[in-house]
């Protein structure tokens, strides 16, 4: 007798989704689907708006990574103006992007996932949260809060607001950085670096306790995609697109982000609102690839900053080729925090950073513009077309989380086949299936944050619809 298990909603992620598992008559998982149940429609309702409004409209997509949308959109608008930005503005934008990466990664690692690591995948779900972490390891909780605070503080110092700032504009940024503000930020970097190193040291020891999860959490060969700079580092703000395979070989390199329609296809499936991007030459679904922290560290031959480089060498030593377990997204996230802190320090110490000329102006010069950057979760592309008056006629957004859609679906199937093996459901069993999704840190809404209010209700149904088993979280 076949059965269906539904996990609805998936908790401790950004946005709304559910998971359906199908079991055969032997109680084995045969299919797994990750459903994104919300629809946003930003590509449609911006049509008709002046292009210069786009950065501020588009950043409202997300409350966690608005800076990435702001930057990708501003870069697309830079393209419409056919202009580069002043040197100071370029570096300030890069700092903003890295600061956002710090606060977003800190939220993902410390707030959403560290309860699983510290308390265990099978811990009582009423304690498996940040409060549980605070009780068991106050230092870890304080460290997470401090890192997130620092990322937000950098954003607020530069851009005036922690969330949805309007400081980045087509052609540069609105206001240069003062020496006083720069010095205030610089003073705090050593403490933040010490936190990142402390957490890395702890987390690497914890790997021993999660061998089964490392082996089964979306651990399979795939392509990896991301931006790489001319000096072969991960390009968070700039670069060309590189694809590598699971052996670490470069499949394609130096692809222009603006040419994405030539190498990226987008498939749709009836069970979800999220599209399925794929690498065109391999077709759908064989063209599965992964983006984000794991991919970025797999794509490059060096990390580029001294302390992060040491960690990157250890990370890459996990496997002979590319690191394939998606459990190690968490590890990669911590290394990227360290990299971001070191890199921000480099930028802040550059005398260019306080130059007063931070914006160029121009009129509309192109009718099409593409902006691309690496959001915390992966490659983000904004593509706009405008009419002669500069009004948006068409927009396409390829959101970082979407790139991972094929891998997330395949990943939950792999984990469910391993952990969900009987008719008797346990909460810990299903938490592991959710944790696969959490490893990717998907941002689905991006700006809806309703989980925590909604109950989790998992039902095991017979093919006739009879409830065989069920568990509930919340009311």
């Amino acid at each position, binding site marked *: 007798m076949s059965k269906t298990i539904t996990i609805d909603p998936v*908790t*401790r992620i950004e946005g709304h989704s559910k998971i359906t598992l199908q079991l055969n008559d032997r109680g084995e998982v045969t299919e797994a689907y990750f459903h994104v149940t919300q629809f946003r429609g930003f590509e449609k309702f911006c049509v008709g708006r002046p292009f210069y409004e786009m950065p501020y409209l588009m950043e409202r997509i997300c*409350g*966690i990574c608005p800076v990435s949308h702001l930057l990708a959109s501003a870069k697309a608008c830079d393209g419409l103006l056919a202009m580069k930005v002043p040197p100071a503005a370029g570096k300030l934008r890069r700092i903003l992007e890295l600061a956002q990466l710090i606060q977003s990664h800190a*939220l993902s690692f410390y*707030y*959403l996932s560290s309860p699983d690591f510290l308390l265990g995948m099978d811990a009582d*779900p*009423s*304690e498996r*949260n*940040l*409060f549980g972490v*605070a*009780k068991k390891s*106050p230092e870890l*909780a*304080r460290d997470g*809060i*401090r890192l*997130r*605070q620092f990322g*937000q503080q950098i954003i607020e110092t530069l851009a005036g607001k922690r*969330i949805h700032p309007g400081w980045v504009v087509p052609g540069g940024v609105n206001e240069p950085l003062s020496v006083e503000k720069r010095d205030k930020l610089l003073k705090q970097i050593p403490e933040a670096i010490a936190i990142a190193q402390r957490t890395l040291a702890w987390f690497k020891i914890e790997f021993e306790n999660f061998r089964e999860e490392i082996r089964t959490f979306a651990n399979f060969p795939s392509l990896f995609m991301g931006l790489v700079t001319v000096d072969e580092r991960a390009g968070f703000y700039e670069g060309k697109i590189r694809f590598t395979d699971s052996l670490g070989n470069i499949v394609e390199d130096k692809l222009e982000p603006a040419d994405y329609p030539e190498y990226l296809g987008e498939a749709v499936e009836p069970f979800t609102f999220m599209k399925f991007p794929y690498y065109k030459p391999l077709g759908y679904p064989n063209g599965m690839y992964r983006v984000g922290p794991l991919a970025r560290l797999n794509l490059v031959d060096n990390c580029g900053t001294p302390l992060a480089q040491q960690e990157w060498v250890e990370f890459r030593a996990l496997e002979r080729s590319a690191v394939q377990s998606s459990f190690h997204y968490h590890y990669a996230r911590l290394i990227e925090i360290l990299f971001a802190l070191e890199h921000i320090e480099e930028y802040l110490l550059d005398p260019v950073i306080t130059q007063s000329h931070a914006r160029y102006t121009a009129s509309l010069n192109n009718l099409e513009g593409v902006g691309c950057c690496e959001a915390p979760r992966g490659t983000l592309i904004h593509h706009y077309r405008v009419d002669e008056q500069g009004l948006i006629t068409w927009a396409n957004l390829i959101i970082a989380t979407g790139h991972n859609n094929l891998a997330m679906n395949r990943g939950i199937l792999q984990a469910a086949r391993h952990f969900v093996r009987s008719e008797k459901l346990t909460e810990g069993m299903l938490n592991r299936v959710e944790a696969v999704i959490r490893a990717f840190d998907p941002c689905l809404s991006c700006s809806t*944050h309703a*989980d*925590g*209010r909604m109950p*989790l209700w998992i039902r095991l149904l017979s093919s006739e619809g009879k409830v065989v088993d069920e568990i509930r*979280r*919340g009311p």
Partner: protein
Amino acid sequence: MSRALILACGNTLRGDDGVGLYVANSLADELRDPEITIQCDHQWTPELAEPISEAELVIFVDASASLPPGEIACQPLQPAPNPPAQFTHQTSPSALLSLAAELYGHIPARSYLLTVGGKSFDLLEELSEPVRQAVPAVLQRIRELLSRPQRPES
């Protein structure tokens, strides 16, 4: 250490949901005391636990979907004995007090949640009439709380 921390929460694009921010902005114009910190947020998040732990008085200001439109409630707060099981990056005031005590070993001597009943949470950038009329009374209530001697609420 701040003598007082005023934390407003809401979304000014959703009608009366933004009343806390209107109140906070009015206070920022009125109060120039360096010992009083006013902060506006879309949500209350765990990062607030640290500044809360450093204040002697904290006042949370928010809209309420359950109070009648324009009605004001002022509730003394204690740390939540059992913080919510499901938790991401949005936290209740009492849970924040709990987190402040757990992580930083100190909570304000006095903590209050001041709420105003909303009438409309639709997509608009203005307050409804009953909520607008309630704003002066909310401001007065906050002034009273700020002027009261620092002692624990009985």
